[in-house]
């Protein structure tokens, strides 16, 4: 038996010791836990651990295989995202026990808090006492057994799996139904309770999904034959600027669908862009520029603030997060390869890390989203950075949407959901209800990766002046800001077109937010959302970004022709589709070469602009290099409206 006194060590030291001792069969006893957070996070080998007291948040989280016994209570997120193993809690568990778990067993002898088993994909939660409200909220698989009473809305919006309740049910959640349970199933549940010496109630009621939420009630055109047969509404053209053809079309389409419209791409409305500002160098300088890449430093490091190994990029440009699911396997592989060829990084997006993509990429950020689809602690170890997605520019406040046409057997398996369902990811993380919880979540990721990699946040631009201060205080390495022009595979059009602020305003808000608290330079910023080339990138960097990321531009480079069929999965170029015959149309090598070329071209533009501004390092660009071309852009950015008259001598005698 090995003893660890938690009072005389940091949590990181405790977890390192547990990991070191795991796998050799010895029992590990942790004394004086005093309800501290993150005990036994990231244990990826079998281990037997006894915790002599209470544990705090995320006990046994992001683990695979440990058997943990907690004498007393546990805080939020017991066994978060657990892959296998068993955790037995002597008394009570706080909210969201078993959040996102894939398999394994949680036993809670007392009561459990709200939203137990939220977005769980598999495994078993046994609760000897009562459950607070919304047990099984959005669960996608597995079983929850509640021997006592269940609070309000049990099983709310569950997709798959089952909840068994022995006591009183306050009320059933939306989209659930009560069904009879066969005697054999009841015997099985009783045997499970017996194994942990929990007294079984007289009888159980079983609650499962009513499955109404698996599919939209109505389909978009192109999604089903039925939808395509609907008579086309008449084209109406009214005079004036209010009832534009587009406004009228919106109304007729919503009248057909009875809901918001879903489509891919991004916002098409007019808004301020980087075209509204320009560089104030003397145009004559350009004639003297040649061989710009060798004269200008573009190397960029992201992260490292908390001791992890930073991303080391050849250029201040990365590939933006886009999921395998929204995009095809071929284009994801091509993007990963292109990022390696160009010496930069790519990003998994939602829905897990595809092995082929990981193999191609030299540096890869692993995204964690609210639904925890395909998110697992083993892939965390393979990542060069972890990113917690709060929201995205194309749909701030909403989770991802992946229409049923794109949910193949493989994608359903990775994500842990039924094949062909219209997947709407949760709009918020189960375990991040505010900035105060976020700080613990970020630290959980650090513990799970033993502080080796940068942890970042991705935020759709809204109230960035506030949000960036929160990000700073929540101890992330850098923040990825996504402006309103950001793209998407599928989103509610009303949100895409109307929620958020443009990228140009976003970077200004972020920088000003940091300046408010004299923290400029203390948090690295990556800007994305409608970045089209080196000019946009250089302007973003001059306004204060450390790097940019490209999504839409990258898939355009890969061959996208904007056929607008992303959301129905019929992309004729094999990019935003899962149909094998369409995916096969995308030649990985050719697409990778084109995207890599585009990245190199962008980098060359950035280098040329930097030199034209009289600087030899892209990170020396600043606001003084810019002017505004419109009064609106001047108001947003605070840049001078007229072109400055100074003449610049380019550096390095170019």
């Amino acid at each position, binding site marked *: 038996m090995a003893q660890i006194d938690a009072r005389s060590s940091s949590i990181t030291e405790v977890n390192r010791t547990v990991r070191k001792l795991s796998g050799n069969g010895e029992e590990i006893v942790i004394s004086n836990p005093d309800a501290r957070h993150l005990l036994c996070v990231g244990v990826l080998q079998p281990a037997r651990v006894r915790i002599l007291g*209470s544990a*705090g948040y995320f006990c046994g989280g992001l683990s695979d295989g440990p058997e943990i016994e907690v004498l007393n209570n546990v805080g939020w997120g017991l066994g978060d995202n657990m892959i296998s193993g068993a955790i037995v809690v002597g*008394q009570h568990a706080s909210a969201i026990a078993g959040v996102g778990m894939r398999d394994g067993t949680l036993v809670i002898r007392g009561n459990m808090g709200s939203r137990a088993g939220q977005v769980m994909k598999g495994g078993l939660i046994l609760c000897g006492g009562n459950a607070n409200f919304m047990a099984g909220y959005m669960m996608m698989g597995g079983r929850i057994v509640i021997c006592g009473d269940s*609070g309000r809305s049990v099983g709310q919006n569950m997709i798959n799996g089952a909840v068994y309740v022995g006591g009183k049910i306050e009320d059933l959640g939306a989209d659930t139904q009560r069904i009879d349970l066969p005697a054999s199933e009841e015997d099985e549940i009783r045997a499970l309770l017996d194994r942990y010496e929990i007294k079984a109630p007289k009888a159980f009621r079983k609650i499962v999904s009513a499955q109404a939420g698996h599919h939209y009630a109505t389909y978009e055109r192109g999604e089903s034959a039925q939808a395509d047969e609907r008579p086309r509404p008449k084209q109406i053209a009214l005079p004036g600027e209010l009832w534009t053809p587009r406004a009228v079309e919106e109304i007729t389409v919503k009248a057909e669908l009875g809901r918001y419209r879903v489509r891919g791409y991004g916002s098409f409305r007019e808004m301020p862009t980087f075209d509204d500002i320009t560089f104030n160098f003397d145009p004559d300088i350009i004639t003297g520029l040649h061989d710009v890449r060798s004269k200008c430093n573009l190397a960029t490091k992201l992260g490292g603030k908390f001791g992890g190994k930073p991303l080391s990029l050849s250029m201040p440009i990365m590939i933006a997060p886009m999921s395998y699911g929204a995009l095809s396997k071929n284009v994801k592989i091509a993007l990963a390869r292109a990022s390696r060829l160009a010496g930069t990084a790519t990003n998994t997006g939602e829905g897990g890390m595809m092995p082929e993509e990981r193999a191609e990429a030299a540096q890869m950020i692993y995204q964690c989203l609210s639904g925890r689809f395909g998110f697992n602690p083993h892939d965390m170890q393979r990542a060069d950075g972890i990113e917690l997605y709060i929201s995205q520019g194309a749909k701030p406040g909403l989770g991802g949407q992946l229409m049923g046409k794109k949910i193949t057997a493989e994608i359903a398996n990775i994500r842990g959901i039924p094949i062909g369902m219209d997947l709407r990811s949760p709009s918020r993380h189960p375990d991040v*209800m*505010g900035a105060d919880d976020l700080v613990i979540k970020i630290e959980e990721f650090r513990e799970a990766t033993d502080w080796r990699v940068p942890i970042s946040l991705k935020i759709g631009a809204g109230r960035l002046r506030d949000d960036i201060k*929160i990000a700073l*205080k929540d101890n992330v390495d850098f923040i990825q800001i996504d402006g309103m022009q950001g793209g998407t595979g599928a989103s509610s059009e009303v949100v895409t077109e109307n929620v958020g602020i443009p990228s140009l305003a976003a970077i200004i808000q972020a920088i000003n937010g940091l300046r408010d608290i004299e923290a400029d330079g203390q948090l690295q910023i990556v800007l994305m959302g409608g970045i089209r080339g080196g000019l946009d990138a250089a302007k973003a960097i001059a306004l204060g970004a450390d790097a940019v990321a490209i999504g839409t531009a990258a898939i355009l480079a890969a061959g996208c022709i904007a056929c607008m069929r992303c959301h129905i999965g019929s992309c004729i170029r094999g990019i935003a589709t899962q149909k094998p015959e369409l995916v096969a149309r995308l030649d990985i090598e050719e697409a990778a070469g084109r995207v890599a070329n585009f990245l190199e071209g962008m980098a060359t533009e950035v280098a040329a602009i930097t030199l034209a501004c009289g600087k030899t390092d892209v990170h020396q660009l600043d606001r003084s290099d810019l002017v505004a071309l419109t009064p609106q852009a001047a108001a947003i950015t605070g840049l001078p409206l007229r072109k400055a008259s100074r003449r610049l001598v380019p550096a390095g005698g170019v």
Partner: protein
Amino acid sequence: MCGISGLMLTQPGDIGRRLVQMLDGVQHRGPDSTGFAVYHEDRGGPLLCRIYLGCPGDSSQARAYRDKVLAIIANHGGKVLNQRFELEHLRLELQYQGEVKALCYDIENGAGVEILSMGACLEIIKSVGSAFEVDRAYNLSGYRGTHGIGHVRLATESVVDVSRSHPFWAYGFNDVAIVHNGQITNYHKMKRQLEKKGLQFRTDNDSELIAVYLADKLNAGRTLDEVLEESVHELDGTFSFLVSTLDAIGFAKDVLAAKPMVVLERDGMIAVASEEVSLQRLFPGESLSTYEPYPGTFKTWHKSTLARVA
């Protein structure tokens, strides 16, 4: 976005030292500022008034503020029995029989200072920095009393400063204070309703509303239980808050249960906090029997009946 803690003892004890420990336990939830509302044992003495000056107590500016405050108190017929500067605070003990609200509004509007607290037993001490830093600066550990609440703040919207730190005193109402974790989303509408009744606010912080809202109802003769029950329905948004009065502590939790809260009731005390790790600071190494309140619920504990809690 924050962490909260509260404590009530059956016998007067080292309430300050214990709250410092409890708040250090949840400091990770709020690194920006830390504050305490502590209640001395009721000795039926003069009113205690704590004023934030925004400048060091040994400056001429501080003395000028003090003179203005003293003049206004004299105008209202009050008599200052004791006064001392503590860093940027001015602490007064005064005899005053008149309406507290009128006096407070005059002091703030006339002298340009900020009253942190007023009451027979209440003192609010808050500052930017950690629990231990505030303790070192204002010697919280030296405070004895029967109950108190505390807060660590992570500012999300309004500025990081003393004014917007918690606890919030119910401006103009003796001995009422709150600490809040969450966000009140019908803040503007509710604030306007109270302003129409002639009540004043000092900040743009949504949590200040809770203090004034509750105190206004208490002042109208409602019991703390009635007031908390109504608050669960009338306040919108996310909240886990603690309220303290001369002889009671209570909590209310929103229906979404977005913000955590853990309660420990045992012989001689009740303790409430955002996380169990805060409660464990009172009993390191012990196995505690705690519970989490249900969403949309409230509860109160009164000094007079606390002895019966077991």
